[in-house]
């Protein structure tokens, strides 16, 4: 029998360009201790730990969870390390939930992190070699293809940037807070990877995110409302082969349809109240709205244009400020799930969307080829 499963504790670090005030373990514990406090649990209550992060070269430590084991409370427990590129934070939560759903463990700590300031993410992405085009350079032609195909005006990207940065100003944990940002400022910021401007790109952050996943019994004991998991899915596809469509990757389509099916969603745009989507560059918001069949072909940018994805809109996307405002790569996927959980729990604070009952969390990675998605609700599955 499969167990019902819920997120009962969420913790994030304050994300910054450099967190020189803490060790790596200290960074993780800041998120873990907040998640434990939220759930009113201690590490004694944790049966297993699942850790996620992106490439080890970012910090220059091979399989760093090995040296972190005792600091994160894993001594004498199972500790599993997940690595699925940028989607890893989402995958880590999914793997943690599988421990609970199968009944193997009752309460699992999941934590995802990156301390990019120890190294240099651009160097890491370039494999330590010159001439790296970076994630922005790799994704830019795909975003251009989306713009061409959809006929979206330039300012859509700027609008996403303004919305996310303003949302981030309401999020105490976000890295970039720019309450005064305007379309003009985005438009005038330097072009980094044409068509992507500086203010349309994610920062490089230090930070961690933790989430405590537990079974129905654990959820009943939880002091605050649980975020019930109604659907979880991962999908991967080859990154490069002739004829692949990376603008609307099939793995993303199938991953979305899998979680919708599990959660009984037939019309995502009306049945989902908000979404946290992995948007490291502004254009990825409309691309994922279409890529996950929330909007029809060529309709995603119109949801941005009409303000539907604003904090007060009909389908708010990234009320937390998203990856555009905060990107500790390994953590970013889990932040999407954590923020979606806070929304259904009604605990998102100043960036809370009114009346969220169903939330969608999504993370992607690699050459837009790894996906991890989840549907969370404020009520348990039937």
């Amino acid at each position: 029998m499969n167990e019902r499963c819920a997120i009962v504790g969420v913790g994030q670090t304050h994300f910054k360009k450099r967190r020189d005030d803490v060790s790596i373990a200290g960074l993780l514990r800041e998120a873990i201790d907040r998640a434990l406090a939220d759930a009113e649990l201690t590490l004694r209550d944790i049966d297993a730990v699942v850790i996620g992060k992106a490439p080890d070269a970012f910090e220059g430590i091979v399989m760093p969870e090995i040296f972190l084991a005792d600091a994160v409370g894993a001594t004498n427990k199972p500790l599993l390390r997940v690595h699925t590129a940028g989607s890893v934070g989402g995958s880590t939560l999914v793997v943690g939930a599988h421990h609970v759903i199968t009944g193997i463990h009752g309460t699992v700590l999941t934590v995802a992190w990156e301390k990019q300031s120890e190294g240099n993410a651009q160097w890491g992405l370039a494999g330590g070699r010159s001439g790296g085009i970076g994630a922005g350079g790799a994704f830019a032609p795909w975003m251009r293809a989306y713009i061409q195909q959809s006929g979206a005006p330039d300012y859509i990207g700027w609008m996403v940037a303004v919305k996310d940065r303003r949302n981030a100003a309401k999020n105490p944990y976000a890295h970039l807070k720019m309450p005064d940002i305007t379309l003009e400022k985005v438009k005038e910021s330097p072009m980094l990877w044409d068509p992507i401007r500086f203010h349309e790109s994610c920062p490089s952050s230090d930070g961690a995110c933790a989430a405590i996943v537990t079974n129905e019994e654990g959820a009943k004991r939880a002091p605050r409302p649980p975020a019930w998991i109604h659907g979880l899915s991962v999908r991967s596809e080859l990154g490069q082969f002739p004829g692949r469509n990376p603008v609307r990757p099939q793995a993303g389509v199938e991953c979305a349809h899998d979680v919708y099916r599990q959660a009984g969603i037939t019309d995502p745009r009306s049945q989902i109240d908000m979404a946290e989507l992995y948007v490291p560059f502004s254009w990825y918001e409309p691309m994922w709205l279409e890529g996950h069949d929330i909007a029809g072909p060529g309709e995603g940018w119109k949801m941005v244009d009409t303000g539907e994805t604003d904090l007060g809109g009909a389908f708010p996307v990234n009320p937390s400020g998203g990856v555009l405002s905060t990107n500790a790569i390994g953590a970013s996927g889990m932040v999407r799930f954590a923020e979606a959980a806070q929304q259904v729990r009604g605990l998102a604070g100043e960036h809370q969307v009114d009346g969220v009952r169903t939330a969608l969390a999504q993370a992607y990675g690699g050459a837009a080829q790894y996906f991890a998605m989840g549907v969370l609700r404020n009520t348990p599955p039937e």
Partner: protein
Amino acid sequence: MAANDRGATDIAIVGFAQSQSVRDAAPSEVQLLVPVVADAITAAGIERSDIGFTCAGSCDYLTGGPFAFVSNLEAAGAWPPISESHVEADGAWAMYEAWMRLQEGDIDVALAFGSGKSSPSNPAEVWAQQLDPYYLAPLGVDPVSLAGIQAQALIDAGKATERDFATVVADSRRNAKSNPNAQLSGDYDVDALLAEPYYRRPLRKHDVPPISDAAVAVIMARGDKARELCERPAWIRGMDHRIEAHQPGLRDITSSASTTLAARKAGYDGGPLDVVELSSTFSPQEIILKNAIGLGAGVNVNPSGGPLAANPIMAVGLIRIVEAASRIIDGTANRALAHATSGPLLQQNLVCLLEGE
């Protein structure tokens, strides 16, 4: 076994494949994997499309690319898209995740694989960077030196002698003679081994594993599907893994508390075992692990030769499970225990208990 048993006891290994382990393989990691995964699928008598979940285990640092693992998707047949995940760990942990995923009951077949090429880099350089980045890595502590420290502690504690180490090596090399995938095999005299010079006293070169490249894949199936695919499936009776504190100075390195715990949690009750496959990377570790699990003198340990005969890091642990499973599937064993390890000095350990019907 009753069909209504809890899921955990209802999953079996029904097919597998491994490459030869070689010192310096010309094929890339993914090129090693491609035929291995294809052979495992053939061995299980399934189609790729039957696989409901795939999990891969590897380490980016072995080949030096920050996203090296992404290429391994090509061996997984990830088009059309598949339900897949990856652990930065030995394939044994990938199998653990896939075994767990199968227990949800919505899929019947899962694939797990592990792959690694240690040859492109110097393991002493790479694995020094796995250690505590403040207190240990800057000292350039290499795995062989650490193993020497552990061996000396074992001798000082009166738990083993250098002759015991050499006996482990001679047994490994002799057993490996019947393993076509092993790198080092042959008949060696214990006294002759003891006459060899020290490499990291008290260890000699033969107490240290070879540098190896290889890949391994395993197909698991649930309940009736397993019986349909395999005449004599290797049922996974239990699987568990545990980790200890990192710093060698914080734990008793002459024992392995996490192995003891993992074996108990995996359901090992001290009963008879027909075969045991241990990830005893250095010869003294076989003695530590046998004590930790509670194995008697007569137990058949590492009939494959174990890691001293071939040590493809990131595959070697899953190879132990495959070697144990193979002997159940072919009917020569009925109860087997396999072990995988990670981290310095047996910091993290996984135990898998397998049985025939």
